[in-house]
């Protein structure tokens, strides 16, 4: 365990060096957040019926996703790590006395935590200061639902781990697909839709909603976002946490299995 902890820490330290990139990322996410908000506000404006979420809850939901963007399994999928199987560098990893899956998983968790400590934090600060200054506070992120705070904290830990598990799973497909370029862009498409990032899951029509509820992806965004905005019943909240934990276990097990199968058949050209 100590080895994985060390791997996690090195990754954290090396990524925290890039502060300017973190600021640029935060600004980009805020801009995209505004586009979503303007769009959804316009949709709300035209509709008469009762909506599943109030506008201010919706803003919190959208901002929560933008703040968490660096943690979601949609950024950094195509990294030098993900290409190691193709380049053959994976052989160096195999010479070490750590599990291959554990190695990548610990590094990805490190990247996610860095994103949370830099990019997400900068975004929260910008949102809290910039919006009032620009006179846009009405579009701002509301305060969290205090009652759910302990559950939210627990859910966030699961979010990071689940996100890392999905991420590492995509890496492992590299054993069969040569380049992870295809699987990571496919993963991006599926995750951005079924996590609720493109459209809140609350607006999904019946059948599609059921699919989204079963799939693991709502666990990386929809569940913690609704805990934050408090648009969940306590029963739903506990169900959401269970869904996260269950999928985390399944995906880690699947990833470990893929890593084993992959290493067993791996051929690395010498050079």
């Amino acid at each position, binding site marked *: 365990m100590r080895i994985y902890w060390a791997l996690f820490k090195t990754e954290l330290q090396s990524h925290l060096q890039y502060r300017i990139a973190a600021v640029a990322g935060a600004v980009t996410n805020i801009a995209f957040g505004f586009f979503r908000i303007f769009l959804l506000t316009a949709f709300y404006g035209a509709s008469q019926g009762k909506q599943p979420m109030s506008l201010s809850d919706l803003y919190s939901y959208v901002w929560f996703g933008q703040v968490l963007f660096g943690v979601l399994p949609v950024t950094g999928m195509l990294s030098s790590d993900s290409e190691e199987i193709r380049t053959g560098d994976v052989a160096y990893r195999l010479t070490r006395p750590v599990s291959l899956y554990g190695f990548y998983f610990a590094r990805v968790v490190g990247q996610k935590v860095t994103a949370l400590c830099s990019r997400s934090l900068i975004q929260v600060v910008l949102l809290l200061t910039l919006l009032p200054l620009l006179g846009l506070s009405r579009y701002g992120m509301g305060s969290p639902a205090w009652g759910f705070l302990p559950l939210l904290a627990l859910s966030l830990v699961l979010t990071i781990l689940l996100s890392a598990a999905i991420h590492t799973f995509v890496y492992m497909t590299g054993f069969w697909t040569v380049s992870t370029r295809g699987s990571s862009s496919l993963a991006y*498409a599926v995750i951005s839709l079924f996590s609720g990032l493109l459209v809140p899951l609350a607006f999904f029509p019946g059948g599609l909603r059921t699919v989204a509820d079963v799939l693991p992806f709502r666990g990386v965004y929809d569940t913690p976002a609704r805990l934050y905005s408090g648009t969940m019943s306590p029963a739903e909240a506990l169900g959401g946490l269970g869904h996260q934990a269950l999928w985390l276990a399944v995906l880690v097990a699947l990833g470990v299995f893929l890593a084993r199968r992959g290493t067993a058949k791996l051929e690395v050209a010498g050079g």
Partner: protein
Amino acid sequence: MHALSVYFELVKASLRSQMRYKLSLSFNVFGYFVVFWSEFIAVWILFGHFGTLAGWTMEEVLVCYGLAHLSYSASEFFTRGFEFLAPLTRKGDYDRYLLRPVDTAVQLAGYEFALHRLGRVLQAGIVMAYGLASLGARVTPPGLLLLFWAFLGGSAMFCGTFIFQGAVGMKTLQNIEAFNILTNGGPEMAQFPMSIYPRPLRLAFTFLVPLAGVVYYPSLTFLHKGGEIPPFLGWVTPLGGFAFLAVALLAFKQVEKSYISTGS
């Protein structure tokens, strides 16, 4: 003329190399085709839930969607190469480009003619065709001509954004993520009627970056949605896209002058 023939040679070489791996190419085209449906599904879900957006039906919005994504994906063929300006400058490899007796902009445009981008063109084309088909009698020959003209202006504009990004990258030695707001974000914003955005943003997208000029205003004219602008303006505003491209090229040439090699 010389520059043009060199450009076609570069494109031909790029196509030949991609054709070597036909299976891999078809997978990539298919992958690129599939990926962009999720964004369309998002639009479809929203209209399914809410019905209309600022007085626009989904079929009408799909004209904007089609125009925005078609022009963007067309521009990717020509100017994605400018993204390599930052790494080329960082490593000092840009020397080679300056030494060759052809305009550097032409060389960068011919950097890679990535065929897999056809996947996105196809996706946007299908959505556009569906939108136009459901509009029925509102589609007229002059209207289609207008759409084609707007598509040309839009492609020019998106080419301009990639060139701007590259020029800035030459200075900063790293591609700035904030440019994604314009490049990736451009079609995402323009696919909806601009009237949903606040006035300052709308003005910026009309006069600073003519995103509205190449998508929104022509769509208004095409759909006979009067009120906001006199209909003939929809024919004029796509010119802004070409102007934007010209300014971007000038800026790139200006930045290029300050290039200093690494000396290795």
